[in-house]
């Protein structure tokens, strides 16, 4: 199992994690992967935060799928997040299902999978768990925390909760609070899962059933939000799938239907339905301003963290305006902030794709932060 989930840190019953919702999680595991070498004074650590259904295999080759890691364009030797220079660590968030403890894990109290007995977790809980992992590994300060989408929420939470441990932060294609529209989309996904009779009130694992259809529909709906109208039009238009004319039925006549069905199908094989409920819920509950008395800038008062905020023009899930609000809040505390909006028609997914201007912004931001931090490229040369 270990080779499929990378490295795992176990936290025993004596090291409980106090959760936002009042409950306690113990014991728990955090699966993580690392790239590059830590330098002598441990000052070159970059924490990568993955998105909703992401995992710890950000770079290199995924041990299960054999495909490149989800951010292998960004992370690696000579890449913007240069593993010749930085020590990169990417943990799987708690609540997920790819090695870290979540609703599919065994509840030590019952000997059965938690299911919906798993406590509801928040972005702050995920960050607190990551902080425990870093403590365990003897990592004090992070040179940088970087992530997109939900990962960007974790980045903002890190900078707000542990500013003394964060030197620089790059929240990408994200927001300081989940919008009403985004909560609505998540609710559609959750209802699709829960409406599947195979969900069994969340107890499907014990009953050896899987709400695959519901989870696939949830993924299909979500997938639409990751793309832009232009990208869909460019990729599929109204093209028909392996046929000359429409069939006057409900087969996947259109390529776009076939594509979405495929996306739904492959997702079911790699993701747990209950995890999808929990992690989407964590995103819905995220509201950094709400936690700071309604004023976002109070979440960053007196911060010394260097920020690089990135948004993408055709991202309607986390539109530029959301990033701009973060920038306004950071300006209000005279923080060190850069903000780039990347012109692209690829929608929210653009942060995972080949966007040269985005890469040079991150590379420039990290190089200048490294200079400020006194990190020379030479020091960590292998």
């Amino acid at each position: 199992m270990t080779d499929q989930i990378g490295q795992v840190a176990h936290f025993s019953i004596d090291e409980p994690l106090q959760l936002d919702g009042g409950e306690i999680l113990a014991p728990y595991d955090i699966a993580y992967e690392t790239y590059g070498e830590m330098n002598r004074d441990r000052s070159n650590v970059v924490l990568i935060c993955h998105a909703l259904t992401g995992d710890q295999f950000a770079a290199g080759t995924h041990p299960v799928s054999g495909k490149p890691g989800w951010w292998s364009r960004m992370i690696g030797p000579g890449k913007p997040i240069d593993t010749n220079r930085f020590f990169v660590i990417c943990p799987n968030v708690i609540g997920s299902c790819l090695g870290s403890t979540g609703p599919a894990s065994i509840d030590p109290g019952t000997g059965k999978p938690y299911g919906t007995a798993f406590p509801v977790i928040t972005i702050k809980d995920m960050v607190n768990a990551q902080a425990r992992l870093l403590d365990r590994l003897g990592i004090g300060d992070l040179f940088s925390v970087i992530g997109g989408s939900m990962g960007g929420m974790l980045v903002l939470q890190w900078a707000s909760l542990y500013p003394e441990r964060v030197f620089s932060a790059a929240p990408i294609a994200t927001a300081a609070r989940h919008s009403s529209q985004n909560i609505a989309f998540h609710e559609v996904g959750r209802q699709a899962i829960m409406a599947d009779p195979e969900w069994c009130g969340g107890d499907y694992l014990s009953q050896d059933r899987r709400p695959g259809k519901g989870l696939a529909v949830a993924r299909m709906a979500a997938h639409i939000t990751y793309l832009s109208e232009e990208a869909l039009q460019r990729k599929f238009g109204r093209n028909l799938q392996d046929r000359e004319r429409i069939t006057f039925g409900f087969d996947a006549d259109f390529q776009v239907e076939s594509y979405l069905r495929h996306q739904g199908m492959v997702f079911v094989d790699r993701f747990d339905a209950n995890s999808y409920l929990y992690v989407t819920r964590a995103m819905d509950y995220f509201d950094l301003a709400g936690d700071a008395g309604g004023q976002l800038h109070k979440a960053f008062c007196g911060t010394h963290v260097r920020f690089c905020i990135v948004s993408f023009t055709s991202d309607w899930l986390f539109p530029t305006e959301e990033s701009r609000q973060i920038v306004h809040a950071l300006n209000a505390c005279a923080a060190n902030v850069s903000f780039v909006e990347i012109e692209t028609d690829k929608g929210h997914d653009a942060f995972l794709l080949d966007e040269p201007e985005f890469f040079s912004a991150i590379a420039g931001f990290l190089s200048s932060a490294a200079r400020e931090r006194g990190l020379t490229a030479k020091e960590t040369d292998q």
Partner: protein
Amino acid sequence: MIETMAKIRESDHQRLDHLLIADMVEPGSKVLDVGCNDGTLLEMLSTQRQVKGRGIELSQKKVNICVARGLSVIQGDADRDLVDYPADAYDYVILSQTIQATHNPRTVLREMLRVGRHAVVSFPNFGHWRVRGSLFFNGRMPVNESLPYTWYDTPNIHFCTIRDFVDLCDEMKVSVERALAMKNNGEPIKMSHKRLANLLGEQAVFLLKR
């Protein structure tokens, strides 16, 4: 100043007002460059004057260039976005060759001097003899190297002369700590001869204080 002049002659590619601005900024200070363009001035200030620099730039393309250069720059607007910043956040707020493109120069200036302890403003002088000549002899709005736009596509909507600017500072009770006019070859003209400076200075740089 002699040293500055030598640098000017060495590096024609650098905008002349940049060197004069750099001269007015204390080393190691905290600087906000409003309308920072591609970051040339910010980069120069951080390498030569060790300032902690931030920038605001209207054009997103130029912002992205700045960030790729490792500068802390955001997309924004002098007219709209200075209000977000807290008072006294910076030692200097710089507005280089931008005031003539703002909608409300007076408000921008007041905001600059709220956010920063000092303001540095450089602008093309509309009182320069060539501008006057263009109007007087040709009866046309001037189009030349330093004022390259035609009247209908210019971003410059609030031109002023050196004397106009001094009047505005007086009216706003803003004190002028230093002022320089500059011929197009970079040669400075003392502001003590106001009329002469206004006639011969193609560019002007002012260091202001609340």
